[in-house]
């Protein structure tokens, strides 16, 4: 059976980037295929990089076609923005409904939501660590690209581990299905609560799952330590200047400034790690603005009070970053003991706060897995979780509501305005990947500049560029409300005469 998987990946390897000679083929209209991120790299007369554009070529318009819909349908409509992280949109929308109807969810309902949400974070992060981004590290950036995938991971860490990952994700997704009816596009969220509770009789299996989930997170941490941290080459790569940007960071924190995915205030630190803002979701338009460029459909978020100063880093530039690296930088610690220990080790190893290395996202992600797993254990053992008091029925007239969560890929904001019947008149969404879109564009340009010198294009260019943005776990499905989560990419290199000299596709 493993042989069969290997064959698939062999084929993928053949077509993808293992062999530079196949990768360097000029490939025509695939460049225009939607579902592709696009990179256009322009060279100077001397053949050095003048400018690289990281483009997202698609837009769907959920905000507009939500108009006229009953607000209570939004958790299910907006989850269709992304089938990889539907639970994030579902939960942000549900919290926007709480705000819209000025209704507090009951304590058990809040805990159920938080349980489902942390379960989702754990399984989604696991997907990234083992399948999408992690292979760069676990198998190694120097390994043939054809091995930098789940099969390579399995070979490196053993078949049993591969099975463990598949089974663990499946079981975690079963919990979400239990509470939400469906794991892809769940239905539990209502203003003031959730549609369905947990039955006491079903808890033993979820308690078992919670224990195994924590064991799994610990194991993942160990894998990361053994394979990545014990290898000085990897550590050098993580900290290399090519993957470093000194920007602002944003993340949600609880009352003690600890990382929280489900609820809290948004905190911003500057490139020196100093808090410069802390605000509630209601104030988001005072702090966050979106910049438009004519060459991409995606908008670029920046800190409004600092201002848009172009694609640049430093305290004077409004560019900020979100997702695991940013969340750890923006907080003072983790709310659970094992995650806190890992958090301390992380900053100690990487030279203190804040960490500016994009590649450290992978490590931060594993620390967040530990937190999610520990939090799940707290929640499944909380007697409130099986309470039947799961809804407060709204009584107030709706007007405007804003909800925020930390999606796996960063801060996610849903903002709705309605008429008195609760029909959407205006919807505005700031999705996670947008919070990183400026920094991601900078990373791609920096990698291109570092790797293309005097007209010589390094064979490893695309892998390195890819690694630069894969660390962010970008979801352009979210960013444009249209594309699937994992993104193939096209890079085109133009000379000064406006001709394509190189086109690389993955």
């Amino acid at each position: 059976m493993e042989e069969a998987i290997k064959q698939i990946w062999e084929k993928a390897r053949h077509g993808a980037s293992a062999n530079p000679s196949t990768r360097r083929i000029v490939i025509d209209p695939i460049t225009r295929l939607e579902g592709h991120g696009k990179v256009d790299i322009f060279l100077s007369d001397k053949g050095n990089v003048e400018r690289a554009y990281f483009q997202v070529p698609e837009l769907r318009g959920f905000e507009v076609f939500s108009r006229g819909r009953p607000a209570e349908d939004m958790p299910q409509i907006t989850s269709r923005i992304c089938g990889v992280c539907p639970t994030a949109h579902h939960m942000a929308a549900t919290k926007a409904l709480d705000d819209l109807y000025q209704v507090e969810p009951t304590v058990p309902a809040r805990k159920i939501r938080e349980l489902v949400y942390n379960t989702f974070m754990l399984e989604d992060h696991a997907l990234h660590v083992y399948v999408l981004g992690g292979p760069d590290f676990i198998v190694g950036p120097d390994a043939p690209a054809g091995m930098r995938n789940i099969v390579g991971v399995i070979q490196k860490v053993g078949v049993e581990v591969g099975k463990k990952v598949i089974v663990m994700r499946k079981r975690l997704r079963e919990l979400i299905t239990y509470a939400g009816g469906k794991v892809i596009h769940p239905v539990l969220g209502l203003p003031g609560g959730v549609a369905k509770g947990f039955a006491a009789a079903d808890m033993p299996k979820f308690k078992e799952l919670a224990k195994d989930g924590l064991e799994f997170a610990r194991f993942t941490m160990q894998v990361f330590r053994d394979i990545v941290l014990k290898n000085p080459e990897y550590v050098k790569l993580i900290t290399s200047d090519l993957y470093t940007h000194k920007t602002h960071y944003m993340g949600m924190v609880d009352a003690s400034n600890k990382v929280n995915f489900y609820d809290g205030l948004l905190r911003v630190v500057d490139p020196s790690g100093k808090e410069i803002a802390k605000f509630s979701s209601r104030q988001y338009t005072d702090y966050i603005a979106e910049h438009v460029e004519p060459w991409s459909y995606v908008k670029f978020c920046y800190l409004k009070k600092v201002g848009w100063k172009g694609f640049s880093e430093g305290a004077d530039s409004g560019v900020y970053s979100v997702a695991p690296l940013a969340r750890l930088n923006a907080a003072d610690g983790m709310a659970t003991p094992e995650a806190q220990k890992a958090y301390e080790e992380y900053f100690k190893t990487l030279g203190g706060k804040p960490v500016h290395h994009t590649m450290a996202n992978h490590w931060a992600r594993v620390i967040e897995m530990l937190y999610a797993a520990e939090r799940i254990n707290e929640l499944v053992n909380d007697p409130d979780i099986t309470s039947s008091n799961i809804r407060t029925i709204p009584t107030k007239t709706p007007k405007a509501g804003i909800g925020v969560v930390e999606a796996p890929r960063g801060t996610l904001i849903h903002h709705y305005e309605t008429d008195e019947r609760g029909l959407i008149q205006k919807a505005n969404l700031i999705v996670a990947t947008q919070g990183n879109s400026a920094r991601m564009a900078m990373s791609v340009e920096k990698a291109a500049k570092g790797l293309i010198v005097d007209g010589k294009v390094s064979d490893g260019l695309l892998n390195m560029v890819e690694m630069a943005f894969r660390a962010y776990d970008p979801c352009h499905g979210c960013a444009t409300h249209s594309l699937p989560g994992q993104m193939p990419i096209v890079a085109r290199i133009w000379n000064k005469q406006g001709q394509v000299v190189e086109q690389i596709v993955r």
Partner: protein
Amino acid sequence: MSEKPKVGFYWCASCGGCEESVVDLAEGILDVVKAVDIVFWPVAMDFKRKDVEAMPDGAILATLLNGAVRSGEQEEMVRLLRRKSKLLIAYGSCAHTGGIPGLANQFSREEILKFVYQESPSTANEKNTRPQTRFAEEGRETHLPELHQVVRSLDQVVEVDYYLPGCPPTPNLLKNALGVLLSGKLPPKGAVLAPETALCNECPRKDSKPQDVAFKEFKRPHLARIETDKCILAQGFMCMGPATRAGCGAQCVQGNMPCTGCFGATSRVRDQGAKMLSSVCSNIDPKEEPEIDKVLEGIPDPVGTFYRYGLARSLLRRKVSTV
């Protein structure tokens, strides 16, 4: 060389949930891999368009395609895959009936662009910049694909052999469909590879569904408690179950929420929304117009309720734009 039948997966305008549903086969994916040769699957493996172009026509046994069609590039790809595949299968609501993105057909492209790049409360864009299909800066020219006006289901673009409904289809449905395709005992062309009965038939609450429902009001789900053991429609919440095809195991009802109709109608019904509307209207209890209006206040968004997944392929299709 492998003699196994060739199967492809491809996406157009979709959210990635259909891809996740394939991944959710979990260890079941191994059986699929044993039985077929996956010739392309962009989300998991690289493939190039010219590889597909180089294949003889009909070389692929079946292509399962998810997502709606909303651009020229997608249309080209869809036509190419149609030629190369013996069987083209619309996978999931968006390819089947347009899906939720099809709700955009109620609005013009201009309304969308104007909001996103100008009117949105967080957008700072004094110069009114818009993404350009061609943009030149200091001699450098970048390109973006043009967005089309309407969203179409797959069979509004090319001939489709079979359909797998659902947002997303369930892993069981996929397993069964692959079994049918590989068995060689093909159902009649155009078949939807899911049960020909209404969702109510497989609903765990079907025993509490009354023979005749007389609607005195419609309750919106956020304003009233939903009991966990009674037919949701009989409780006065709009549940699309009676007008929706079975096959998902009544997942939303298992989550104690109404069915929203993602599997589309059974083959006997041309238009899912019209079917549900007519059945609702004939079961409204009051007979006088003002009272009827009052009952219907509980359904403030008929298009989003009755055509949430099916607008693009329905009799309504789209709003004729005035912008």
